[in-house]
């Protein structure tokens, strides 16, 4: 593991980012990680989402995983909720769609209509 001093410095910068971000989070992203999701590549999708947050230095987006949401044919499924808007469900979010999804909806606040699962 990297040195403890290094982690201590990271901790201080992270605390500063928390202060700047204020209470709560900008958005919530949920990746469906049931057997069906994993088989369709959900782990790689989630790794890519975390990679985008790291790359763009986004400190106020919570990414969590959940089980099968019952829409197996649309996996990998990603749900996004920005601020206090309704949560929307996206289907077939392979790694090559992640950058656009983060850019347009998580950062830009505009849902990517063509990837939404209508149900």
């Amino acid at each position: 593991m990297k040195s403890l001093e290094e982690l201590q410095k990271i901790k201080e910068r992270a605390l500063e980012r928390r202060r700047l971000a204020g209470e709560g989070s900008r958005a919530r992203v949920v990746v469906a990680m049931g057997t069906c999701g994993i088989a369709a590549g959900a782990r790689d999708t989630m790794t890519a989402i975390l990679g985008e947050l790291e790359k763009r230095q986004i400190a106020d987006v919570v990414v969590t995983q959940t089980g099968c949401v019952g829409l197996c044919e649309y996996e990998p499924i990603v749900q996004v909720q920005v601020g206090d808007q309704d949560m929307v469900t996206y289907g077939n979010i392979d790694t090559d769609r992640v950058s656009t999804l983060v850019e347009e909806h998580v950062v830009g606040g505009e849902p990517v209509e063509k990837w939404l699962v209508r149900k």
Partner: protein
Amino acid sequence: MTVFRDLSQHLMDIAENSTTAGATLLHIYIDEDPDANRLSVEVRDNGRGMDPQMLLRVSDPWVTTRTTRKVGLGIPFLKQTAEMCGGDFQITSVPGEGTATRAAFEFDHIDRPPLGDLAGTLLCIIVGNPTLDVVYCHHVGPGEFVFDTRELRELLGPEVPLYDPEILGFIRGTLTEELMALESEAA
């Protein structure tokens, strides 16, 4: 017949079972022992566990506790893969205490799936389940790597979320570098 490309996807699947069972602590052991021609993977959780009837049926592909879909396929796939690779599979559980899932494989068996993206899998399990602690213990021959999120959380304190971009980078970097070092040491 297999749905997963690699063992790290199985690991993700078992971890998801554990969090669904309400686990707050997950122990993951990976032991690569090429000299003994054996690779074993074990996941132990402190979730709600299963009673003997459920445990007997859990390797049956037509059993699941899920309500969104009628079949459960993760455990039967892992059992089948282990048995196909000259290994074995075991699952033990105590209601109220937790569940342990173990799978072993012949290390050099032609059908043995690769370990796959362990660093990415662990990062997702750790960050994606904010109320779960993970103790990861990986041996390759005499080499060992241990990563314990309880230590990390203690150092960071309650106010620093693990989804902070620099913390993400720290966890990803540490896992990637240490796992690479572990494999190259053994080679």
